[in-house]
């Protein structure tokens, strides 16, 4: 696997795992209020997720 291809796929995995984690935590907070937010502030995390999504889209061939 080429290095550029590896880095791109690695970025995809990071982005996908972060998105899945974000959704799982958001659903958890929705179902049991107060279960996630005190430990992880999802609002603060959201911009980083958007950056990751942007980079993934930009890096797609």
């Amino acid at each position, binding site marked *: 696997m080429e290095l550029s291809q590896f880095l791109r796929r690695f970025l995809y995995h990071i982005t996908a*795992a972060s998105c899945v984690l974000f959704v799982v935590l958001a659903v958890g907070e929705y179902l049991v209020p107060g279960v996630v937010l005190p430990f992880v502030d999802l609002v603060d995390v959201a911009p980083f997720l958007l950056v990751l999504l942007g980079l993934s889209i930009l890096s797609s061939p």
Partner: protein
Amino acid sequence: MRIPRYVALPLFVIPWVAALVMVVWIIINRFPPNGMFVATTDFTHQSAFINPFLPSERVTSPGAQPEGWLGQRITGDPTYMTARVPGPYDSVTVEMEFRPVHQPLLEFGLVKDAAGLELDLAPFYFEGLVSKSWKRVSNGFVRNGTDASRLLNSDTRGLATWDASATMPLLSDPASPSIETPVSLRGAHDFYLIPSNGLLDVTLQLQDANRSRGGSVAVFRVFRGEDELQREVLDTSGSRDTRMGKVFDHRVTVKQAAPGVYRVAFQSDDDVFIRSIKTTSQHWVVGPRLNFGDVVGYATTTMAGVAWTTSRHVVAETLHAEGQQVVLLGDKKVNVARTHEAFRLDRDDSGSQPVTLSAPKGDIRFVGDGWFALRPEAYFDPKPKRLTDATDLDAEHINGILTSYTAPDELGDGWYRAKQTFTLDPSLDRLRFVLSAPGVLSRVGAVDIRRVNLTYHREALTFSGWIDLVHREIVNAWHRL
């Protein structure tokens, strides 16, 4: 440059493992297997679990204070702190580091209802007991040289209580004719009476002023010591009445009343007035709250509020301009010159006999550390005086204090660390704590707080118990969908 597949694939798994670890970390924090969760704040950063004290007009902004220390300063009373409960727990221990500044007494507690009326307040700090001349015994504090059994004695002289009950004196009077005392008392009052010839007989003349919308409800509860004997609920007027209601009698009797002190707790809102009290008891008192009402719509002349009390510290407050007046307690007087403001009367004499409390215009509320008789010959002490922020243990010759209070740890430089544990309702996801610093405003005092620790407890779980708990939360969440 090429990356071998056996290197790339494990690297691709890392983000997923990290996400899984994050989920597991949150679950373990939410449901710690050891059954303990600790939240701390030093007021320098925002905490997800503990909010600073409020309201803002009674506290300073959390963080660096002008004198150079870090924390928050309390300057009013009461103040509230909210906390987010991090899961299902049985109890919480609050540990607080604080420094009282010209503030001799603190109480700390939990607000148990949304309206903020039901408080679970507990002793937190009393300056008078920091002295080495007092020692802790099983049910309170006694002066060095005083036997611990003094606290079990029913003689109320030289004793004080602070959030504790005292041994009830077994008192009884001979038969006596019924005597009526005209009064104008407003709202809830506690009456303490000694039975006369084995009979407790008291009749209150009531009137609903119907000043607020809807009829009022009055509740009569009768206690002997701490045991409730009777409870009766009655409507004082119709729900659409808007004019002054009729005066009517309500009689409370306990036949074959054993010797002791009986408490008739009359509970109602301030719309209901007590116009007279008729009882066969020779000794009866009211307190620690005594609210002289007005006579608007009932009589054409003002009824003065007069009582006899051994209270050494009384707080007076009126809600109406007509209640502004000079109030006398023995030879002390204070001009209650503004409405909705507490004015203090503190005796500094050494007398132990009841003195006259006089409010010529009525329409004023008193709260004392003792009790009030509405006939001078009826006075008696139903139990020891309450410990208040104005209590001077030496001047008042107090040798014992019945209390659950535990002296806080001294940390030096005037700082203390105190602890208090509260049982939790598992359905609550937010807690509201209250810190009471009575009189802090009038004495220009303060309470500095530099750290709060909340330790939540529940039983430690086995692995299967822990899985059950998580499973139960998931099922609950599923049902919420």
